[in-house]
């Protein structure tokens, strides 16, 4: 299934050693660069310079490309007057409630399909067929069913969240090592205790992976939903800026969306490491 192969970005900065770099080039770059962090700044700085140059020489009209200084000013303004904070909280709350609802449904689905062959034979194919619909494809249907209010955002995130959680839970249950089951049998653990002591802990890594995917996808999809129909939230802020032809607002919001996406990723990574401490 596609969702299982969706990978989170892995922070991996190992230096490649498959192709030999001429030693002179290395030394030259290191002299001017000092360290890796500065080297990483070259590209964004040159983009910024090019951007500034384009504005100063008016290659592109400012309505289409506002100057970096204007964008920075707008960003500071939006932060200072609390607009950004307000819309961010609304957006985050939508993602959290959507993932909570969808994740819960996904857990039930995943455990049902994982624990019973019959259930997985009966609902599995239908579930997989529905999972193949791109998550945004549900939006027109949901608009007709639940309107364009808060429910639309929460339900569309919930649908997107249920799929990775269910699939990863299912996978987790299927992959429980047989010796655990045998041990449980020998020790006479059954019923609710069997679920609590054996199934749940061994499925937990899969569940956490599922929720991590659900969150990072939910955050991305929410922006799309808010762009389509919303009167508050970060997506709305962008639509609003676009309608006023104030691209500085749009660009500031893009930066904030990126920063929050990054923080969300870091937070989830930390959380999963903390929850799965016993795996290491």
């Amino acid at each position: 299934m596609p969702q299982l192969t969706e990978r989170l970005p892995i922070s991996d900065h190992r230096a490649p050693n498959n192709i030999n770099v001429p030693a002179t080039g290395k030394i030259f770059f290191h002299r001017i660069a000092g360290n890796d962090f500065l080297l990483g700044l070259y590209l964004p700085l040159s983009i910024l310079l090019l951007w500034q140059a384009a504005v100063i020489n008016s290659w592109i009209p400012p309505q289409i490309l506002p100057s970096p200084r204007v964008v920075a000013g707008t960003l500071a303004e939006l932060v200072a007057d609390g607009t950004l904070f307000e819309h961010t909280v609304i957006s985050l709350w939508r993602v959290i409630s959507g993932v909570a609802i969808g994740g819960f449904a996904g857990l039930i689905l995943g455990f049902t399909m994982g624990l019973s062959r019959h259930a997985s034979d009966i609902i599995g194919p239908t579930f997989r067929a529905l999972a193949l619909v791109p998550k945004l494809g549900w939006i027109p249907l949901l608009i007709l069913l639940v309107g364009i209010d808060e429910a639309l955002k929460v339900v569309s995130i919930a649908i997107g969240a249920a799929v990775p959680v269910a699939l990863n839970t299912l996978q987790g249950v299927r992959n429980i090592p047989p010796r655990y089951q045998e041990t449980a049998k020998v020790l006479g653990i059954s019923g609710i205790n069997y679920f609590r002591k054996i199934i749940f802990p061994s499925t937990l890594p899969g569940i956490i992976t599922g929720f991590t995917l659900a969150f990072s996808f939910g955050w991305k999809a929410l922006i799309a939903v808010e762009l389509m129909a919303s009167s508050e939230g970060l997506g709305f802020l962008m639509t609003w800026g676009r309608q006023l032809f104030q691209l500085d607002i749009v660009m500031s919001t893009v930066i904030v969306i990126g920063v929050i996406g990054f923080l969300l990723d870091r937070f989830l990574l930390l959380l999963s490491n903390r929850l799965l401490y016993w795996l290491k």
Partner: protein
Amino acid sequence: MTYTKIIKGLLFPLLIIIAWQHLYDNGSLPQTLSAPSYIADAFYENLSNGQIFLHTTISLQRMMIGLLIAIIIGVSLGILMSSSAITNKLFTPTFRAFMQISAFAWIPIISVWFGNSETARIIFIAFVCIFPIALNTYEGFMRTPVAYKEAVKVLNISSTKRIRLIFIPSAMPSIIAGIELGMLYAWLATIGAELLMGNGFGVGALMLAGQELFRMDVVFMGVVICSIIGFMVTLLSSILQKVFIKTGSGAIR
């Protein structure tokens, strides 16, 4: 798959369809929620007047053009980032920073810069797909097994040969995985582009039109078409894997 499994798999959707139709005919469901018979009618109508064919072709065409551009740029970018320590340090941090931004956040900017044009839609689709493809290409080349590198050194193979015989085959599974992900992203992005900056053509636009006219049957039809195309995309990606990944390529575990 055995016959009993297929029958069991069909049981659930059939039951839902029958119950849905029955409840609708009873009048227990609101009239706005269409019924399976109406959805079937919508299918028949739109198949016979060629609407489905038209919109699906346009969507698939967009998706394929965007994907093709993304494969070219993404694979080159991945090779560039992984080709040397310097390019890695120069480009990878910026690449990762851009990856954090939800792709849909670019839609307002793209639509200001390129208007509501076909170019804008294709740029968006390509932009979305570049990330998984470039990342997987990069990781594929970065994870060449040490054993291979040592073998290359010991055997003193010429550089063109070592790229052709060692590095490309060992990175291939990862590159293909990136392209597969790219295909899924491309289909999602196509629907997104058609919903958010559409021109009235494509499967997404078909659904949007149905929604605006309160034609629930047409919207349901769109969802089914989406699922079928999604299935075809996964089928295509499994074929891709079989064709391009020779046995024995990839990393030894």
